[in-house]
């Protein structure tokens, strides 16, 4: 009987000790959870600083992709050689953009970035980058002319938003309406020329909206154009916004259905869908915003020549750019541009597609969203936001990071 009491006593003691140990562990974990969160913040801040303040290795990896064939030793987006913090390199940003219409052949994916940043298998992240100010363009009225199947957009409603989707009032918006004429040149080769530029300025209201009306300008211009010539004109609206010194630039053009009107500029190369034919002297560069402050809007746009580097259908050429871009896919046409201004925000390329002339708008201030790993809410994640610069335009960098084990 006494031995039985001893056994019962020992059992109770063991159960008691286990329960106490569990409680102690729970209390300990509760307190150390704060430390773990702080460590996650420390990691996030370190990674964010590395991304926006260092150029990576090799430092010119954005445009000099042929020399390294895509091999990086370190990841960073800062402009090489700059002394200004948060100054980002447009070519490196372009390597992170991946358009749904045209996959980026030089795309650097989340897994590779995670590996370069030393985050593989331990942390997941989402890296989002977007212009601080963005425009929504709605065409309210078209200018119809005899001799054209498609009408030219003439009256626009512009809505200005910040990166959270808030409306931005009191911003000065200038619309630079450019008419481009395609005509036969020497040797019956079509060329594109900037024929006329109209400008209109307006200020956004409380809803962040304003109207830009070019109807009278177009009527006045086309009154002097012979009817047979009307169909040779293409139109681009370049939008320049100044909001107390913060500047944003965007572009709009009418797009034929299913037309491949997107592309990439990396270094001196333009990467386009292989089905379109670019006119020889047809790349229009939008110059740096600093120059755009000059009211002579015609000087903002420069026409430069483009040369076909590889056509995307035959086996890849031995030139390094073609070898890297068209490796195994033969999907892209690659052109070399005569001259790319380093700080050019947009490039327009006049091309022929299924018998029609189209304008390909290449935006060098793209929206970027790169993800590595998955998580399901709620998760212990850390979000950091920094405001960088791409050219002279404010560009928001947002990093969300979490532990894989907690995802």
């Amino acid at each position, binding site marked *: 009987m*006494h031995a039985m*009491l*001893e056994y019962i*006593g*020992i059992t*109770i*003691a063991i159960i*008691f*000790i286990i329960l*106490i140990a569990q*409680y*102690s562990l729970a*209390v*300990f974990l509760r*307190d*150390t959870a*704060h*430390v773990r*969160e*702080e460590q996650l*913040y*420390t990691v996030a*801040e370190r990674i964010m600083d590395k991304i926006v303040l260092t150029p990576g290795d090799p430092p010119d990896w954005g445009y000099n992709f042929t020399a390294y064939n895509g091999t990086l030793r370190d990841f960073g987006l800062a402009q090489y050689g700059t002394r*200004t*913090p*948060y100054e980002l390199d447009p070519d490196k940003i372009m390597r992170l953009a991946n358009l749904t219409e045209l996959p980026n052949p030089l795309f650097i994916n989340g897994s590779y970035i995670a590996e370069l940043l030393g985050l593989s298998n331990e942390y997941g992240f989402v890296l989002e980058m977007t212009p*601080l100010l963005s425009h929504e363009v709605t065409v309210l009225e078209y200018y119809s002319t005899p001799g054209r199947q498609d009408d030219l957009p003439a009256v626009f409603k512009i809505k200005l938003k*910040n990166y*959270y989707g*808030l409306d*931005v*009032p*009191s911003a000065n918006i200038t619309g630079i309406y450019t008419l481009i004429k395609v005509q036969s040149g020497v040797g019956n080769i079509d060329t594109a020329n900037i024929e006329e530029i109209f400008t209109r300025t307006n200020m956004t209201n409380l809803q962040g909206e304003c109207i830009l009306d070019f109807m009278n300008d177009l009527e006045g211009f086309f009154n002097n154009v012979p009817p047979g010539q009307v169909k040779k004109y293409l139109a681009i609206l370049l939008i320049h916004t100044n*909001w*107390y*010194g*913060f*500047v944003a630039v965007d572009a709009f053009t009418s797009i034929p259905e299913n037309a491949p009107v997107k592309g990439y500029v990396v270094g001196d190369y333009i990467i386009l869908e292989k089905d379109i034919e670019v006119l020889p002297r047809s790349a229009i560069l939008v110059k740096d915003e600093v120059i755009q402050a000059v009211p002579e809007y015609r000087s903002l746009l420069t026409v430069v020549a483009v040369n076909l580097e590889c056509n995307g259908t035959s086996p890849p050429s031995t030139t390094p750019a073609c070898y890297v871009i068209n490796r195994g896919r033969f999907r892209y046409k690659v052109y070399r541009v005569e001259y790319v201004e380093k700080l050019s925000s947009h490039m327009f390329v006049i091309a022929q597609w299924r018998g029609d002339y189209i304008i390909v708008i290449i935006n060098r201030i793209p929206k970027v969203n790169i993800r590595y790993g998955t998580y399901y809410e709620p998760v212990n994640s850390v979000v*950091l*936001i*920094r*405001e960088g*610069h791409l050219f002279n335009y*404010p560009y928001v960098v947002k990093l969300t990071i979490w532990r894989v084990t907690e995802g």
Partner: protein
Amino acid sequence: MKRGQARIIEVMLAAIVMTITLVTIMNLTTPLRSIYLRETSDLRRVAYNILNDFGDARVYENIIIKGNLTGRLWEDELILFISVNIPPQVVFNMDVYVLKIYRNGTLEWVKLNRKPISNVENWQEANIIEAESVTYTYVCVAEPDEGRGTFLKIELTLGYGG
């Protein structure tokens, strides 16, 4: 009572004493203030980041200097401008000072804003969980000409509202 039973009781008592000691120590230990430390560190970086961006874009000249020269409500413009530039959950308060140099050589920072520059009704009574204050000095270099060379001191506090 046998010796074995006495030992069991001793063991149980020892376990109880140790447990009580452990729990008491755990509850008396100062809580780790890691959330406070880490988030304010980030707020400080964000504050300097946006103040520097404003300087690069000549926002101070466009809003503060022009506002003072024209007499318009530049404080309201600045509230709107900052609100659009910071994450929505962040509250802020800003004070702007200008350096006055008197003929006798004395210097004085004079507050420029006539009303609070903040996205909360009453900053003094607002419930702020965590906050970080930074001071940024700026010399106006852009137009308007009347404002060139003006020394500004900007005190910006960012925080998370409770």
